[in-house]
């Protein structure tokens, strides 16, 4: 598990270019996940680095799950957004290590997820071990705020979500599961 203070910050490798990188990060703030349109790629924590070298811009991203079908589209949308702001020579490069974790999701991202009706990942990882029939995580219903909920299935509508149901308001909801 990666500690909070180890969250990689884009641009750390390039002192002196903070302003240029901040400008690019602001543009990336407008690129959203096609499957969860309230989250930007920055909220998701998949932007690992931005490297500026003359007119060449390299964006280093990491996939959430190996098979996430949104990654190809995210790559394309990053290039499009930057190209609209005049960045012509953009390379989006995927890296796999260290593996993405939900701990890299921003607090703002978690707030937006909840407002959208998806329960955000719990702040402490509870499910990433191999114990069988583990107790369900206490996940708060994003609709009525009750903790009186149960897991319907560990696998939901996309690779990153599990399916829950609220026992108070009876609404089913997605939970962005810890990973």
């Amino acid at each position, binding site marked *: 598990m990666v500690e909070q203070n180890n969250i990689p910050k884009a641009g750390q490798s390039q002192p002196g270019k903070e302003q240029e990188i901040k400008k690019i990060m602001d543009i990336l703030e407008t690129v959203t996940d096609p499957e969860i349109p309230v989250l930007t790629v920055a909220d998701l924590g998949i932007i690992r680095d931005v490297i500026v070298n003359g007119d060449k811009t390299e964006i280093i991203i990491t*996939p959430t*799950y*190996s*098979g*996430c*079908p949104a*990654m*190809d589209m995210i*790559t394309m949308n990053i290039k499009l957004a930057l190209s609209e702001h005049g960045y012509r020579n953009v*390379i989006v*490069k*995927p*890296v*796999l*290590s*260290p*593996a*993405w974790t939900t701990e890299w999701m921003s607090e703002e991202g978690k707030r937006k997820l909840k407002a959208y009706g998806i329960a955000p990942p719990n702040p402490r990882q509870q499910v*990433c*071990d*191999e*114990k*069988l*029939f*583990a107790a369900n995580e206490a996940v708060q219903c994003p609709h009525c705020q009750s903790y009186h909920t149960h897991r*319907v*299935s*560990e*696998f*939901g*509508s996309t*690779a990153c979500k599990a*399916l829950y149901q609220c026992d108070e308001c009876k609404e089913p909801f997605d939970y962005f599961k810890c*990973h």
Partner: protein
Amino acid sequence: MSIPNNNATSKISPTGELTGVLLHLADNALILGQRNAEWCGHGPVLEQDIAITNISLDLIGQARNFYQYAAELMGNGNTEDSLAYLRTEREYKNCLLVEQPNGDWAQTMLRQFLFSAYQSLLYSTLANHPDQQLAAIAAKSKKEVTYHLRWSSEWVIRLGDGTGESKQRMLAAIDALWPYTGELFLPAAYELEAGIQVSSFEQAWMENIKSVFDEAGLTIPVNTFMQKGGKQGIHTEHLGYILTELQYMQRAYPDSQW
């Protein structure tokens, strides 16, 4: 998604040629992913249909990562697509277990459990491999396999310790699949060349299987004749049919794209 082909040579492992082992890992994941995907729209209930196809997606994603890296090392115009769609049965290096038919839900669950338990240990080992890209793919995939293993273990217990009917189906699944487990721990030449000792975690695998079987009221068969050959490209009759379906579009319409 493509990995730029810039510093390929610097990534080749000091322990030897990696292509064979990368194709083996990719083929395992692709063929099991394809098998699981056959359940799409046919699962016993909607949630489990979604679960098995989620696992399919993880596996196909893992396969893509291995194929992309293999293509990068092989050069010569190879791509992830050419490796998946244009190799023949004898060129596929997946183990025999993953190509076995879905059968009923019990057989699919047992196949997933036996294989996930193996894959989990294998990826843990590979996460420490001196080749950084191989280690990165393994560490990433291991997190996904943890979910697959727990889910399939619970199903083996639920069915083995369930009704008379579910137990009988689980017993039949063990009879059908156990002969394909021996091959998992027989090292292929390309594994040894890459410094990977699959036999080193056979005992850990067996203990994991035994603890789940114990809870499910099932026993591990003894003195079973073990099949082998998949890792060397000698397959059961099933793989040809899988590839026929999987490769049809590229064979019928070469270079077609979505």
